């Protein structure tokens, strides 16, 4: 019996009888149908086909939103899975315009112990604004027991500093810049947070008014709580700006 080269489908021999032609065509068509189906195992929208052997294929159904395609633990097939957290994972970001306070709740959790917060803040009302930070827990604001110290080098070539013990807030920046072009920038590292702990905050930055060229700040909140967010408030008037929060791999 004659067969095809690649898939070995049965075809009529040259000497077969014409009366057997219909049956021969049916056999050939059936073989082709089986092979084509095997090459296209998908059944559902979003399916992906993959080889299980050098010639056989199987389907993997579409994953759920946000999942990524990876190789399974046996290294035998692809599978959809939640992406693993990177060393630095963006938690959230946002911006605010001329507000008396900017609150970001539920950005800290037990998932990470350490977070990085990048702040860009400016004022449209005054260049004499100071910026304060307080932790949030659930929907409450922690308004006590902030210990902090900050020092900087001024545009007049002098060291300057400020700080407080057991204060009701943490002073992040003195003299927030007035126009958007004079934005004050701070990079904050917040450690030991997300569970019932006393968080530390370390920051570097510069005020927008160029009064303090470089600023270093260190702070400890001495009341242990499960802090989940933060609130920024100006000393007077309003603030505008933006924030990005990253979780750092434990």
């Amino acid at each position, binding site marked *: 019996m004659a067969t095809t080269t690649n898939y070995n489908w049965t075809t009529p021999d040259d000497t077969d009888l014409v009366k057997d032609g219909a049956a021969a065509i049916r056999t050939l068509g059936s073989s082709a149908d089986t092979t084509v189906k095997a090459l296209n195992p998908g059944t559902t929208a979003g399916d992906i086909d993959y080889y299980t052997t050098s010639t056989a294929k199987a389907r993997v159904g579409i994953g759920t939103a946000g999942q990524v395609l990876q190789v399974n633990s046996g290294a035998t097939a692809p599978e959809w899975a939640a992406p693993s957290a990177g060393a630095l994972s963006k*938690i*959230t970001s*946002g911006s*605010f315009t*001329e*507000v*008396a*306070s*900017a*609150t*970001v*709740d*539920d*950005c800290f959790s037990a998932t990470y112990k350490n977070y990085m917060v990048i702040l860009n803040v400016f004022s449209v009302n005054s260049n004499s604004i*100071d910026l304060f930070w307080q932790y949030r827990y659930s929907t409450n604001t922690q308004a006590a027991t902030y210990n902090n110290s900050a020092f900087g080098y001024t545009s007049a070539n002098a060291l300057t500093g400020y700080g407080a013990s057991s204060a009701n807030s943490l002073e992040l920046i003195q003299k927030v810049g007035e126009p958007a072009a004079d934005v004050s920038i701070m990079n904050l590292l917040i450690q030991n947070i997300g569970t019932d702990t006393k968080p530390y905050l370390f920051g570097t930055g510069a005020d927008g008014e160029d009064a303090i060229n470089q600023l270093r700040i260190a702070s400890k909140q001495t009341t242990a709580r499960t802090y989940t*967010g933060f609130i920024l*408030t100006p*000393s*007077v008037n*309003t603030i505008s700006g933006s924030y990005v*929060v990253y979780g750092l791999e434990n």
Partner: protein
Amino acid sequence: MTINKYMHNVTTDQISVDVLTKSELKEHEQKISDYLEKKAKAQAEAEAKAAQRQAILDRLGLTADEAKLLLG
């Protein structure tokens, strides 16, 4: 003039900008008042200290730079 507050809940990804309530506005104004009072007090203390320092320098017949050199 209204004053707004910005709130972002990361879990629900809900962002709201609301006008301060009466009690929040009162608290906001009190906070500003306390801050300005504290700042004015600190400035007055700094000015008094500077005046005191200058009075001593005048009595000794030294300039600030000369005093700095002497103490450095």
